């Protein structure tokens, strides 16, 4: 199979990348591990944040921004509203490590995108006067928890009606090279039928999202196993910020499948009140309204840490979300989980909701030039949460999808499309054959190994990390790799919808990425945002406004430190007590 552009991933980023490349006349193939628009991070998105609305036509705004950026290389200019507020928010949400130029470009692009956001039928909630229902503090539209799946479904239909080739329930597991040091497509297992596909591509766009299921409790959906990060690293790309995991402190404790149900600590639609956190004794330990912060996720984690230390709560139980101060009507109208609790016999306007933490997302990801979304590996582009340049957002991911497609199509036009090399096919076949062996009751199943890997992350690489816990994580992961994985066998030989084989493929990727993440965590000898080192409980803006950049060379993990771009907003240098300063 030969295409111009291969898009791996079917969320907001992948759909936009495929649509844009198709629009530019490229032959596109989309490979989706789950279901396009339905699995992955996109359907879980809470609302849409539409960025700064200027009212200035983009054809004027775009050159203005270019001039502004050029002048800013020499003199510091104040940033005009509304970009200043928007960028300051992004800097704070990304603990200072944000690509400021990228965020300004996004703000400009947003003006063009806005008219089209509801084009295919998406409806952002209005009031009876016809105005958008928004939360002023966050600029968040729609109802909490209800936007992502409607956005995803709308994009799904956009891609299907465009006639773009999509293979769903198929996992890309190795990037193939067009020539030495390039990426020229991927090997893909279509697990619905058991077919192995060799996809040769002029350019490959990785859009596999940010929300992987790498810890026992995580937000990532069933199929998310850090495959995108692992494949990219093996192909020679760099990752950055992967030491930083973003945690949710207030997701549903039970049942297990509902751990992805989030009790929002943010300002809420239709109310001035917010969630109050209580410990196992029933005492209030955090009123999120008091934080005055729109995204108080790290503050919640710090306060929970203190409660756990005192024995008043635990990481997966004994901490409660209390919404009783919020008007019942606002909860019923705008909170997705209202009906979940009603269904389970609870009233969220009255009852306490037990919480557990979840490993929500990797704050980092694949390092790329955010102007073009190209990685350091020629032919490999990225879009969306899989990148290290931003936290998740379906609109940012959409922006990336368009950028990546523009440059990927241009790149694909310059290179000769090739079939996948026979050597790559043979290697992939050998890998699959080895993993496809069926075992006996003495063997261990792939899902059992996955659970063991996740348990290591849950125990040693949780919010609370130290040099010791990270070394424990690395040695446990290495023990699983050498002692357990060789005994892993499938339980069924079926070619059709055999998730054992998919799970078996995932194991290597999960171990690879967790090891890299642990090494990067060791390198960052400070605490920052949700990256908390108990042995370095301070935020050090003098030395650590930097990226930890990781790559793999000859199967050794290599770490280097890179500067960040602080062109428009410069953070105060100096060092603060991480646990005492809520904003550290």
């Amino acid at each position: 199979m030969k295409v111009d552009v291969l898009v791996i991933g079917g969320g907001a980023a992948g759909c936009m990348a495929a649509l844009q490349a198709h629009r530019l006349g490229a032959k596109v193939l989309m490979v989706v591990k789950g279901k396009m628009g339905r699995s992955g991070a996109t359907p879980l998105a809470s609302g849409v944040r539409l960025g700064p609305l200027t009212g200035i036509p983009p054809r004027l705004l775009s050159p203005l921004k270019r001039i502004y950026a050029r002048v800013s290389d020499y003199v510091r200019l104040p940033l005009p509203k509304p970009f200043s507020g928007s960028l300051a928010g992004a800097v704070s949400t990304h603990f200072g490590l944000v690509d400021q130029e990228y965020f300004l470009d996004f703000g400009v692009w947003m003006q063009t995108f806005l008219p089209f956001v509801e084009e295919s039928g998406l409806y952002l909630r209005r009031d009876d006067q016809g105005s958008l229902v928004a939360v002023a503090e966050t600029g968040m539209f729609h109802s909490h928890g209800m936007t992502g799946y409607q956005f995803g479904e709308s994009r799904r239909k956009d891609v299907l009606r465009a006639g773009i080739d999509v293979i769903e329930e198929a996992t890309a597991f190795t990037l193939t090279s067009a020539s030495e040091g390039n990426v020229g497509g991927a090997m893909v297992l279509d697990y619905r039928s058991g077919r192995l596909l060799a996809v040769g591509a002029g350019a490959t766009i990785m859009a596999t999202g940010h929300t992987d299921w790498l810890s026992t409790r995580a937000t990532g959906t069933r199929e998310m196993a850090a495959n995108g990060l692992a494949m990219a690293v093996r192909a020679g790309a760099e990752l950055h910020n992967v030491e930083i995991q973003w945690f949710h402190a207030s997701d549903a404790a039970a049942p297990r499948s509902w751990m992805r149900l989030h009790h929002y600590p943010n300002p809420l639609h239709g109310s001035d009140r917010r969630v109050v956190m209580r410990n196992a004794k029933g005492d209030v330990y955090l009123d999120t309204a008091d934080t005055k912060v729109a995204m108080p996720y790290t503050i919640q984690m710090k306060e929970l840490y203190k409660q756990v230390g005192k024995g008043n709560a635990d990481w997966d139980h004994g901490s409660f979300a209390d919404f009783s101060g919020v008007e019942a009507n606002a909860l019923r109208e705008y909170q997705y989980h209202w009906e979940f609790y009603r269904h389970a016999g609870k009233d969220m306007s009255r009852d306490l909701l037990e919480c557990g933490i979840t490993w929500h997302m990797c704050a980092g990801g694949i390092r790329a030039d955010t102007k073009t979304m190209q990685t350091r590996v020629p032919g490999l582009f990225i879009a969306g949460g899989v990148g290290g340049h931003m936290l998740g957002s379906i609109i940012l991911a959409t922006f990336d999808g368009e950028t990546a497609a523009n440059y990927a199509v241009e790149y694909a036009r310059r290179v000769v499309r090739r079939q996948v090399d026979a050597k790559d096919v043979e290697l992939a076949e050998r890998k699959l054959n080895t993993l496809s062996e069926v075992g006996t009751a003495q063997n261990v199943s792939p899902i059992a190994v996955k659970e063991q890997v996740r348990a290591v992350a849950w125990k040693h690489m949780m919010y609370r990390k130290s040099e010791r816990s990270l070394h424990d994580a690395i040695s446990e992961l290495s023990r699983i790799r050498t002692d357990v994985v060789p005994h892993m066998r499938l339980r069924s030989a079926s070619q059709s919808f055999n998730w054992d084989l998919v799970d078996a493929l995932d194991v290597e990727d999960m171990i690879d990425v967790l090891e890299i993440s642990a090494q990067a965590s060791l390198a960052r000898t400070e605490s920052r945002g949700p990256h908390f080192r108990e042995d370095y409980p301070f935020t050090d803006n003098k030395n650590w406004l930097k990226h930890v950049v990781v790559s793999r060379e000859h199967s050794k993990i290599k770490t280097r430190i890179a500067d960040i771009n602080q062109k428009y907003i410069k953070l105060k240098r100096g060092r603060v007590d991480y646990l005492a300063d809520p904003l550290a």
Partner: protein
Amino acid sequence: MIKLKIFCYDPSSSVDPCYEEVCITRTDNMRVLDALNSAYETLQHRSLAHRWFCGTKKCGECAITVNGKPVLACWEAASDEMTCEPISNFPIIRDLVVDTARYERDIIMKLRPWMERPTVPTFPEKVSHQRMRAAHSLSKCIECNVCSAAIPVEGVTPAGIQAAAGIGAAALVRFTRFLLDPRDQTNRHQLAETVGMRPFPNFSVLKTVCPQGIDILDEAVVPANRILFSSRAESQVEDDETTTIFVRSQNWSAFIRIDPQLKPVLVAAGTLTKADVPMFSEVYDLLDTVVDPKSS
């Protein structure tokens, strides 16, 4: 403890379908999906095929039949004894996994479930929630196909399964969501005529079966029938009694929900032949000829 009896079948193999029994430990607030995941982890000699992604009623991919009723596994509470089967009216891929892709491609997409208008207005367009309320409610549909599985099919042929009114309930919900959207300018009357839409039967089960809480009867069937066919809203509610049989044909196998009166007709006509499969009482092989319930 929870006792699970799970339907297992690989149509690509020559092995007859069977039920796998497994006991698992009950956990707090457990859903059917948690029970299935636990079974998937527990079973030593079998890799159970069940499809799910999000666990929180967003992907719509975990619909199965539990004790005869189509449900969304992540939503339905786990009961002490559960017989789990794939949802009816869709071809089985393996075990609990069915092929819904063909239904989306061949039926749903033909009904153009998206909005079309000649010009895109400036954002944000002023439109009151009052006017959008009906479409908004239907846009909660996650295409899980629980509704399509809850009502009887029109017929079966070796080429496929003929859904109710030729389109099935999920497609009707998708179509009506845009029919009721005041912003949409697609000529849906013409579209309905082109694809040969017919008045949709008023199955009473459609009132309550949707896991997203949509009253499909009142919110989709009645308005669509009224707008497209000028049917009166208070038309007769259909008798919902159905029976489920397992049908094997050369090209597909599926649980099929049919009108109990239709079954003996099909058997008498020789279209369905009862097969002898251990543990099953209602397995039928489908003759390699077209079945038209009206002519038989």
